[in-house]
Structures are given as C-alpha cells and as structure tokens.
C-alpha cells in the first residue's frame, strides 16, 4: 500500500472516529445542519414531484379514454338532473365548511404545514414538513390533522422539520380507550407491508375485552402528546401471556398525507 493510501486511510479513520463519538446533542445539530443545507432542494423537489404526478395521471391510453368518455356521458345526464337541486345546497356547504375549519374549531393552537418529502429509508417512518425553528416549531411538538394524531417532531432546522410518524415503532404514545378505564402505550410496527400501516396498543389488562371500532385517544401521560387527540380505532384484541394487546387502524391515512398541523399549545 502506497504512502498516499495509508495517509488517506488514516484521515478516513480519524473522521469516522469523530462522527462515531457524536452524542445525541451533536447528532441532532448535525442532522439539523444537513437538513438546513438540503431545505431548498427538498422544497423545490416537492413542487417538481407534484407537477410530474399531475402530468403522469393526466396521460391515459385510447381505450381508457373511450371507456371514460362513455361513462362520463351517462354520468353527465345524471349530474344535470341533480345539479339544479344542489345549487342551493352548495352555498350552505361552503358556509358550513368554513365554520368547521379545523384550525378554527380546534382547542389547540396550530401551525399549518405541507409535507415536502417522505423518508426513503426502510426502517424509519418519517416525513419532512416545510416549517421549522423560524415558525416556532420545537422538538417533540405533536403533529395532527383534522382526523387525528400524525406523530411528533424529532428534528428541526430553520425552514424544515422531520416528523416521526405514529406508525414508527419508536413513536410511543400514552393512550386511553373510549368507554373504558383501559390505558396503554400505542406504537407502530417494525415492518409494514401494506399501504395502511397498523398500530399496536400494548400493556392493556387481560380483561380489557376491547371491541372493534372502539376509539383510542391520547391520554396526555408523559407530556409529549396533549390529551384528547384521536389515534385510531380498535381492529382486533388479543390476550397475551401477561397482558392484552389491541391492533388499531390509524385515524389518519399516514401513507397519503399532504397537509398537517403542528400543535404549539392549547388555546
């Protein structure tokens, strides 16, 4: 091995040792710094992806177009008939939608954010949002939608932040079950294969006997997530050797998120 190669190897080893010595604080700063540098690429990449998606969904084959055309003609006749009646309803719906705007009716102070990127790694479930320190975002703040809990902030830079989704195994949420005194910890599963991941509600009593459809909310224990946020609904319940475990369907479709809100406090 030449002298140049040995020197290169020593420098590589020294830099590697420096990175391996990073503690949590240094790692957090390092991540924030890199995200800060990548922020312009991530936000512009998000816009580009939207444009590409809209173009690709617009391209259809001739067969598809013919089929769609005949279906649309039938639909058009039906719609003409119902359209007249709906005109009056439209005004009322708009008014109600405005009145029910989640941000307005929420008991929390919320900051709206858009998802700019999804995690590319296999073992962690995170998304990147276009809000950061500059908008008053802090680590461990809860992220929600009108439907329920999304996750919590784990990394922040000036313009963007990383959200650990509730479907990640590391995102543990203290939870209580509607209509019972049962409390437990919700976490994601290590591996999900379907588009809609499921959540596990652990440490229930064996006698819990949860029924499918029962809603599960954050209990507020632990202080990270405020109480009263809908996490999901019970899908199945099983008794294990020491405790009971329920599988939950998340209230939020975590695989198709576009806009979220960050909870900055209570009103």
């Amino acid at each position, binding site marked *: 091995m030449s002298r*140049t*190669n040995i*020197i*290169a*190897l020593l*420098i*590589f080893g020294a*830099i*590697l*040792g*420096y*990175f*391996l010595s*990073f*503690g*949590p604080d*240094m*790692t*957090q700063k*390092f*991540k924030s*710094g*890199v*995200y800060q540098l*990548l922020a312009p*690429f*991530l936000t512009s*990449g*998000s816009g580009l*992806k939207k444009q590409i998606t809209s173009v690709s969904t617009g391209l259809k084959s001739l067969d598809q177009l013919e089929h769609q055309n005949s279906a649309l003609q039938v639909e058009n006749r039906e719609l003409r008939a119902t359209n007249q009646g709906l005109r009056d309803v439209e005004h009322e719906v708009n008014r109600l939608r405005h009145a029910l705007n989640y941000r307005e009716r929420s008991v929390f102070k919320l900051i709206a954010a858009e998802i700019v*990127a*999804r*995690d*590319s*790694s*296999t*073992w*962690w479930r*995170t998304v*990147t949002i276009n809000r950061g320190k500059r908008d008053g975002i802090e680590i461990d703040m809860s992220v929600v939608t009108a439907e329920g809990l999304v996750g919590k902030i*784990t*990394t922040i830079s000036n313009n963007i932040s990383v959200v*650990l989704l509730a479907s990640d*195994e*590391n*995102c543990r949420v203290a939870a209580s079950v509607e209509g019972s005194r049962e409390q437990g910890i919700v976490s994601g599963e*290590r*591996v*999900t*294969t*379907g*588009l809609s991941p499921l959540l596990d509600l652990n440490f229930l009593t064996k006698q819990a006997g949860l029924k499918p459809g029962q809603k599960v909310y954050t209990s507020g224990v632990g202080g990270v997530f405020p109480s009263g946020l809908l996490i999901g609904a019970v899908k199945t319940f099983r008794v294990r050797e020491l405790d009971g475990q329920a599988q939950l369907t998340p209230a939020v479709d975590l695989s198709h998120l576009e806009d979220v809100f960050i909870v900055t406090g209570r009103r």
Partner: protein
Amino acid sequence: MIFFFLLLLLVLAAQIAELFIPALPWLYSAHVYIVPVIVFYGAMALPFPLMLALALYAGVLLDALTVQVIGGKVEISTGSSILLYGVLAGIMHGLRPLFARGRWEVHCILSGIFTSLIVLAQYLMITFRRGSIVFTREIWWQIGGPGLIAMAVAPILFWLLQWMGRMTAYAYGPERGRFE
C-alpha cells in the same frame, strides 16, 4: 478530478431523489436506493483516496437523513453508514482490475448484494437497540428488494457513469493499462 466532483453531485442528487421515490407496494414496500450503486461505481473507477472520500461523503449524507434521535437517544450511531460504505466500497475497489478488463457483471451483482447488506446492517443495528429480533418474509423482502432493484439498475447507471467519465476525459487508473 472533474469526474470525482461530478460523482459527488450525482450522489447528492440521488440522495434527494430517493426522498421522492415511493416504496414499491408490489415488492413488499421495498425502497429504491440509487446512491449505493453510484458509490460502488465510484469505488471501481476512482483511486483509493478518492474512493474513501466518496464513501465518507455518501455515508455522512445517509447518516444525516436516517439517524434518528428519539427521547434523547441515538438509535444508530452517526458514522455507522460511513463505516459501511467505507468497508463495502473498499471490497469493490479490490475488484477494480476486473472492471478495468471490461467485466462489469460481477460488479453489478455485487452492487445489489452490497445494497442489501447496508439495509440488513441497519436492521440489525435497530434490532439490537429495540430488542426482539424478528425475520419475517416481509423483512427479508425489504432487505433483498432494494438489492434486486440496485442490481437491475446497475448496468444502466454504470453505462451512464462510464459515458460521463469519457465525456470528462477521466483516466481510469493504471489497472487499465496493466490488463489490456
């Protein structure tokens, strides 16, 4: 040197692109990894010091985007990706003479295997931290899937990178002369 900086740019672009490529539902939600293929090409094409620099750069980027700090604890140490890339790129660099002779197939296959090894190493590290080692069919596919994809795209990417190398008048090192 121009080619080396071009590779650095491509690694950055590929790393960002990976964030926008969705997981493949038909392959057990396996992810698409392009960066390792570029790094492993660089390992064959570049001299040893530059190969280490490229591995370091790609490792730093991967660590920054994957390492999670949750509840004040780091799940995978920063630097683990640098070490992984360094070792695997080093092995690939050892096969440089074969590449210089124009034999790419071994490197294409190895690019896939090494990509899966990176995903497997990450899984073993998080399993060590989280406990309960599990290997289901889904997990094997999520480890093997990215490798298969990398293996499939490697010939195209290698050809493109070879072309870029020629465009930038990059000399592929002394091994070429020794074996041709």
